[in-house]
């Protein structure tokens, strides 16, 4: 135990902080809008903030079927394995976020605006309240 003082200390601190961040920032402080989806499949690893997708904003403008049937979004947070290549190629978000129907991909921070290390999940969902995700980020 004593020997870990120097090298292990930083690691332990990081783990502790992550746990604290999850416990406090995530569960208690988070007052996210119902249906907000955080997508953090690749963002953290790439040094980018995770994406926050606001369902409420989009359902005012589109019926569910436009994304979930026509564009092929699965009903699963993080389940579509979206990356920027696909978006620029016109798939998923890129079907609209192309500068034509909606603003295009150079507005990085409008989507990538989540707090770092926020795990992939549908916020305020029943399942989120029943089962708190075990690990920090990425699934």
């Amino acid at each position, binding site marked *: 135990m004593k020997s870990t003082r120097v090298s292990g200390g930083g690691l332990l601190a990081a783990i502790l902080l992550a746990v604290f961040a999850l416990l406090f920032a995530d569960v208690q402080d988070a007052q996210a809008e119902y249906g907000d989806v955080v997508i953090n499949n690749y963002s953290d690893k790439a040094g980018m903030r995770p994406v926050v997708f606001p369902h409420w904003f989009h359902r005012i403008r589109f019926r569910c079927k436009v994304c979930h049937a*026509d564009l092929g979004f699965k009903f699963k947070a993080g389940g579509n394995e979206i990356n920027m290549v696909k978006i620029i190629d016109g798939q998923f978000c890129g079907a609209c976020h192309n500068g034509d129907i909606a603003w295009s991909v150079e507005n990085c921070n409008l989507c990538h605006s989540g707090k770092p290390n926020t795990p992939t999940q549908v916020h305020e969902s029943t399942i989120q309240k029943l089962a708190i995700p075990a690990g920090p980020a990425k699934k």
Partner: protein
Amino acid sequence: MKARYFATLLASAALFSVPALAQQSGKDVYSKVCATCHATGLAGAPRYGNAADWNARAGGGVGRFYQSALQGTAKGMPAKGGHMTLSDGEVKGAVDYMLAAVKDGLKLGKAEEAAPAKAETKPEPKPEPKKAEAKPAPTPAPAPAPAQQSPVAASAPAAIAAAAAAAPSGGDVNAFNRMLKPAGKRNLPPPEDGIHDPTVDGTHALQPPLAAFGTLPKSFAGNRVNWVEALDKNKISPRADRQDPNAVPVVMDLNVVREVKGSMPDVVYPHKQHTEWLDCSNCHPAIFNPQKGSNVISMAAILLGEKCGVCHGKVAFPVSECRLCHSKKKEMPAATAQGK
């Protein structure tokens, strides 16, 4: 004069001996609780016996250390080290114990260094260094007495404040409906919602939900917007096609009644409201077999995000709104109605 001083000392000793019995010493508390971080400097905690660590934080004097220990700090010190069962005196005793270890190298800030803070803790810890400091106390004759009583008197509000800080709602611990999200915490703008990073410009460019919800019909759950009614009354006009604003959805008007167990009203499933938003292929056949009676659905499955729970409890109204689905009253000859 001298006799009187001893009398006060004795009286105060008697006063504090009772609670002191039940209390753990500063050293005990330190080794059980504080040492987790303060022995190694975990998470940036000032290390036990490292005068430099403590000097860097000594600007506010002992009082400031007590406050940090009791109420926690933004840097990561949890209130009372996360052990809310400790009394204020025990926490202060532990602080004293840690400060005693760096006493020689410690240069406390002037602010609260003098009489009140030191005198206050005199009875709590059993340790060594306090005796020396207690001596100057009698000189300002009447002052020490109230100061010595202050731990009891002052600890009560401090404990309440600390407990309140730990309560999820941040208010009264025994507040009514303390687990419910208070009205002021609903539909927060992105910078305050806990998942957006407020340090990014993008977060501040986003529309706050309430700016959009103002004119929409209300509900009691989810976004607190009745989306179906909003669509019905043309308060919103979401496109049915990505590009064509005039495309109309294929709406199917067919109610399916599901008989359910017990006294709960049967479920009426309206295709109409669902097909306003969704395509047949969204549900059929992956989630629901398009054959009446062939789908096994339970509330447990829905709660876990299956069947209806693929949407209800995530984006569509959650299961708290029982009667929106369970809406067809059974004709029940009271006691005999069972099963099904």
